[in-house]
């Protein structure tokens, strides 16, 4: 890593950390119930915001089905990450539902959703900086009870640099390497559905290609993939479904190809 003090900025981790320990995650203790039909994963009509703050998402819908890759694009601050977090139950959902595989999971806590087979790579602070690369991957497989050495070998195959650095604390890696660890961690879960928030931010072209390849492979095994991307053109090229979010609402929806072909979308969101 580039910053000698850890990415929290201020030089310390405890008493001096004025941010607190993180952001508050609302307490949920509900249960899931059957809600058959519909796509494999859907955040339906979500209206949500942070804490007591204003609504960030406005009746926003995101869905992905088995074997599909769905890509969310949009300007900075549109609410893409917020949408992902809402699907994962990490913020205050004011309206709408989240359904997974025929079950309504709106009231489940995030760790219950993990148990239901959802995997998520957040946009920021997405690795355990003080743990070694290998331990990071092990943590990815935390809920697995089977032998995961195969999966680990696959991850190392995919990101060879990580194999060299496996015993190094992940906090000492470069930006792109960290990103690889984060994605590797999520792959270790062998989730039923995989959610990635800008997985390719800061990775080199060659690794990005590898990564997209791998994502495609994973999707082909039937695992739905929901992904936010700013490398939108590459991402939409491999996407089955694309969402353009603007100010917390769905602005355009279509297949990847359709969106790529839409001149308005290209101009306003994909950089021409």
């Amino acid at each position, binding site marked *: 890593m580039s*910053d000698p*003090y850890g990415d929290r*900025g*201020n*030089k*310390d*981790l*405890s*008493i*001096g950390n*004025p941010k607190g320990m993180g952001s508050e995650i609302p307490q949920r203790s509900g249960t899931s119930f059957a809600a058959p039909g519909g796509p494999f994963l859907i955040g339906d009509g979500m209206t949500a915001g942070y804490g007591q703050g204003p609504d960030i998402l406005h009746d926003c819908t995101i869905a992905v089905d088995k074997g599909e890759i769905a890509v969310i694009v949009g300007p900075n601050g549109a609410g893409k990450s917020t949408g992902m977090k809402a699907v994962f139950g990490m913020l205050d959902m004011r309206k709408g539902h989240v359904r997974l595989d025929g079950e309504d999971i709106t009231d489940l806590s995030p760790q219950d959703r993990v148990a239901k087979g959802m995997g998520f790579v957040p946009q920021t602070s997405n690795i355990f900086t003080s743990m070694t690369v290998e331990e990071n991957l092990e943590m990815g497989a935390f809920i697995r009870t089977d032998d995961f050495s195969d999966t680990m070998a696959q991850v190392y195959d995919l990101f060879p640099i990580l194999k060299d650095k496996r015993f190094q604390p992940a906090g000492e890696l470069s930006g792109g390497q960290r990103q690889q660890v984060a994605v590797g961690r999520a792959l270790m879960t062998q989730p039923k559905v995989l959610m990635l928030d800008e997985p390719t931010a800061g990775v080199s072209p060659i690794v990005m290609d590898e990564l997209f390849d791998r994502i495609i492979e994973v999707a082909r095994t039937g695992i739905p993939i929901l992904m936010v991307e700013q490398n939108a053109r590459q991402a939409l090229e491999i996407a089955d479904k694309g969402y353009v979010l603007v100010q917390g609402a769905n602005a355009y929806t279509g297949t990847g190809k359709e969106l790529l072909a839409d001149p308005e979308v290209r101009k306003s969101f994909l950089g021409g």
Partner: protein
Amino acid sequence: MTETVRNTLLFGVIAVLILFVGFQQSWNSALLIIAMGLISSIMALGVNLQWGFAGLFNVGIMGFVALGGLAAVLIGMPPTEGAFAAGGVGVIVALLMGAGTIVLAIVIMRRMQGGWMRNLSVIAVLVAGFFIFRALLDPSVARIEEINPAQTGYLGGLGLPVLLAWPVGGLFAAAAAWVIGKTALGLRSDYLAIATLGIAEIIIAVMKNEDWLTRGVKNVIGVPRPVPYEIDLQNNPAFVERAANLGFDPVEGSTLYVKMLYILLFAAVLLLLMWMSQRALHSPWGRMLRAIRDNEVAAEAMGKDVTARHLQVFVLGSAICGIAGAMMTTIDGQLTPGTYQPLRFTFLIWVMVIVGGSGNNLGAVLGGFLIWFLWVQVEPMGLWLMNTITAGMAEGSPLKDHLIESAAHMRLLTMGMVLLLVLRFSPRGLIPEK
């Protein structure tokens, strides 16, 4: 409820509490609480400057307060007859020697190439310097301490007006803070914390054991006052008459009058400091501090000299604590090094800052008053509680005796309860940072 209304209300509650003490117990108690509340608020202000605005975790408040106390003695007390002649010069030479040794060691450290040669030279200088220092110091000290040890046995002070000790106390604390800051400010906060804690202990150790300077644990009593003595007032017919006109007997009148004077002095200091820090904080200087607190690395990259700024704030905040320390020794009328305990002089101040709301000067002041009030009033509250609980029990039953007996321990317990309750219902302090 707007913020102003809420804050006014909070201060109103304090006022009511104090009035209650005034009516229920005595006005002397009430005024004393105000006076000590003012001093506590000043300390809290200093800590808030360091922590709330700059994110410096100082747990050495006790040391700075004690240095302020030292100033009160060195400025206010009369010089000891013959002590300076006996060993004053020797002590000063020895101290200069000591300082010189350290400077020399630092110079060598800086100038020489790293390696065992350098380390060896530094150690040699330090060891040699230490022994010379001791050789120079010890005899002079012995001579000073020989002078009437039961009453003096120390150098004494300058015999100047004790009010002068307040700024000087600030200077003492500032000087110590500068040295500490120069060495320890680079540390991460938890480590800085223990470093300051340790240095405070060292300061207290010196004050307890260097009898030539402070009489050590034998205490200096009778530090002169900036205000008249009650006895003199009581013997002053004019005052007695004025008091009588107001409906006070001489004793009550004089004690209240003296406390009022102290309160006016303290309040003036608090207001001045409050004005200065509010101004500073709501200016680019304050903004820079907050930036540094949020993210040192980025602030550094944006051209802010983080180390220098930290040092500045650390020195300022500590100086404020030093001033408060001098004020406190002044109102106590004596310096008792043994009373400096981290619980009372460091952690209690921290509680004030946090309960009041760190990052907010008004909060610090509120916390200062509230916590001080509780510190001195929870004991009667605890006793009252125990009496109520045991009211129904048979006279002389062992349980009743045990409970009443334990009432004094209730102070800590009640204090803890109140602390938890306040933080429960306003976890960011009573007047949180905006």
